């Protein structure tokens, strides 16, 4: 789960990390009030979760409260990179002597957290890593020692600071690590971390991504409705409600399968045959007839879909349950679109029997079935090859 900048900053501030003074505003009038209260030149920053916000015009400067109001008016409600701006952060503008980077993230291959720092902040760290790899300092954190203050001091030294400034930076890095472990983050980042003209530091922009699997430890975010969630399609919302893994894609072939890897491979195979999948949907392991029918209904309700591919290899999932689920959907809503079914594995005979009795043809090769459904979708989902209607 990604947090908005203003939410992340509240948490950084809680840990004593210096951040610019500022407040959130949801109307231009509020933005003017905040700017008046701050009584300094400000930045007005769109609160959206997409990267590259600055370049896309999501950050505006304002020297007076009136200008802040106009800036907020420009940003609020418009779409930046396809996302509507729900609020803006009005914040004191700090003159930067230097822009730095510091973040804590996860190194999957080494199975540990890693601290990443650079004297070149303000752009994406991946870009720095490509253009100036020598400017990126990485410290892999041994889970047994953790990230100790002496590690933090080493990092501050390696990006070019000494004396009092080194100590002050190290203290900030250490706090970010503390925060990162307390909040189960996948990423905690200050970019840029600004060195001010008075030699002090401030986290001008911060990002926090929390591990979804650790959500149960952070109930304070439970009722948080993000832009992403309010923008869910009806299919995505229904899938979320039923605990199904669903991802909307651009094409017109609806997909239902069991197992994340198999469904990904199904999408890839469809594309190899020249088709375009409309979604990723994994019914999960050991799916019941009821779960299968719910999944199929979600895919059929997508108006872009003009043919459906069900690809099931039964392991703990039983083919007869899948077959029953399919028939249930036909009984309840009928099939407005042609459907190709590939069904093999546990209780395959029973599953096939149930479907063929009902006049539904079943295939056993994934590739053959993929090819068939691509042809159908190309025919506009017309009757041409309709196995079942």
């Amino acid at each position, binding site marked *: 789960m990604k947090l908005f900048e203003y939410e992340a900053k509240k948490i950084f501030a809680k840990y004593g990390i210096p951040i610019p003074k500022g407040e959130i505003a949801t109307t231009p009038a509020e933005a003017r009030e905040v700017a008046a209260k701050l009584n300094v030149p400000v930045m007005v920053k769109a609160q959206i979760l997409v990267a590259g916000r600055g370049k896309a015009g999501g950050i505006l400067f304002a020297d007076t409260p009136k200008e802040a109001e106009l800036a907020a008016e420009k940003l609020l409600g418009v779409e930046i990179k396809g996302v509507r701006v729900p609020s803006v952060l009005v914040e004191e503008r700090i003159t930067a002597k230097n822009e730095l980077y510091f973040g804590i993230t996860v190194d999957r*291959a080494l199975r540990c957290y890693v601290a990443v720092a650079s004297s070149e902040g303000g752009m994406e760290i991946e870009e720095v890593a490509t253009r100036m790899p020598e400017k990126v300092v990485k410290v892999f954190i041994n889970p047994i020692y953790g990230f100790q203050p002496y590690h933090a001091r080493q990092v501050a030294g390696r990006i070019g600071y000494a004396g009092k400034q080194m100590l002050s930076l190290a203290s900030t890095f250490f706090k970010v690590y503390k925060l990162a472990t307390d909040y189960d983050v996948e990423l905690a980042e200050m970019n840029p971390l600004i060195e001010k003209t008075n030699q002090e530091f401030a986290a001008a922009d911060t990002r926090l991504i929390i591990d979804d*699997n650790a959500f149960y430890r952070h109930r304070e975010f439970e009722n948080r409705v993000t832009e992403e969630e309010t923008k869910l399609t009806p299919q995505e919302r229904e899938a979320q409600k039923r605990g199904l893994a669903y*991802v909307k894609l651009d094409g017109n072939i609806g997909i239902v399968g069991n197992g994340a890897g198999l469904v990904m*491979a199904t999408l890839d195979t469809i594309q190899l045959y020249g088709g375009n999948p409309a979604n990723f949907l*994994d019914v999960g*392991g050991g799916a019941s007839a009821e779960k299968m029918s719910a999944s199929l209904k979600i895919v059929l309700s997508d108006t872009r879909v003009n043919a459906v591919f069900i690809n099931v290899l039964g*392991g703990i999932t039983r083919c007869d349950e899948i077959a029953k689920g399919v028939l249930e959907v036909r009984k309840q809503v009928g099939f407005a679109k042609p459907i190709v079914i590939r069904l093999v*594995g546990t209780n395959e005979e029973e599953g096939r029997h149930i479907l063929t009795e009902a006049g539904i043809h079943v295939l056993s090769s*994934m590739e053959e079935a993929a090819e068939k459904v691509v042809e159908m979708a190309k025919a506009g989902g017309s009757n041409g090859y309709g196995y079942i209607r």
Partner: protein
Amino acid sequence: MDMGIFVDKQTRAIVQAITGEQGSFHTRLMLDYGTKIVAGVTPGKGGTKVHDVPVYDTVKEAAEKHNANASIIFVPAPFAAEAAFEAMEANLKTIVMITEHIPIKDAIRVMAKAKQLGTIVIGPNTPGIIVPGECKLGIMPAHVFERGIVGIASRSGTLTYEIAAGITVADLGQSTCIGLGGDPIIGLSFVETLKQFGKNDQTKAVALIGEIGGNLEELAAAFIATEGYEKPVVAYVAGRTAPPGKRMGHAGAIVMGRTGTARSKIEAFSKAGVQVAEMPSEVAKILSQRLMKEKYI
């Protein structure tokens, strides 16, 4: 000669959360396969039995009384790390973590301890491991596997069964099939598994089944190229069509920024001389051709 890697006929396993729905169901199937499930653990249910397997309150008790050396964990995610620690402290040397959705922070701690102790952790979010005809410590459907010569390492479940079934039909069979797990932090990598398959005489070729997210495939490709890996390796990578930033079912299957794309993995494999199958069914075909050339079949 060892038939496979990590587990064999002598493996004596306990089931953690044996009285749960999944634990009990798969205990039955593992027993049917011939796996030595010697005890189970569910705190508070000590003294009862599941499919005639005695249940204990603690891993220590179960392991000591039955001389166990492995564990399979079905414990729910919030308690799964604790379960793994309990197994490690009881000196169990092979641990299969079926549980999915374990927090990253917990998984990191488990893997650090395992490394220190030399414990093999398979998973989390894995279907487990099977050495056909010897031992099944997992939830995979046994019927798609047959004793044979291909070592399989995979990051997914059902897709593995799909490819394994193809390898069985092609009459090659498997020496060992191991699910590394679909989570971002997992105990075994492709590289570590390749090393084990390299040393195992029964294994004549290796199939690697990867997917988007992380860089374990790239590291495997680099290992194969630099070490001059001798056995033929064939790879499949799922997720060519996955959009960036979206989690494709598995917690670990996500393209972040520029890392973890299928393209990067496929290119790395190709550069290392590893043939990459375009479709799942091609894995068995390519393996057959390679093994015929090497005169194994």
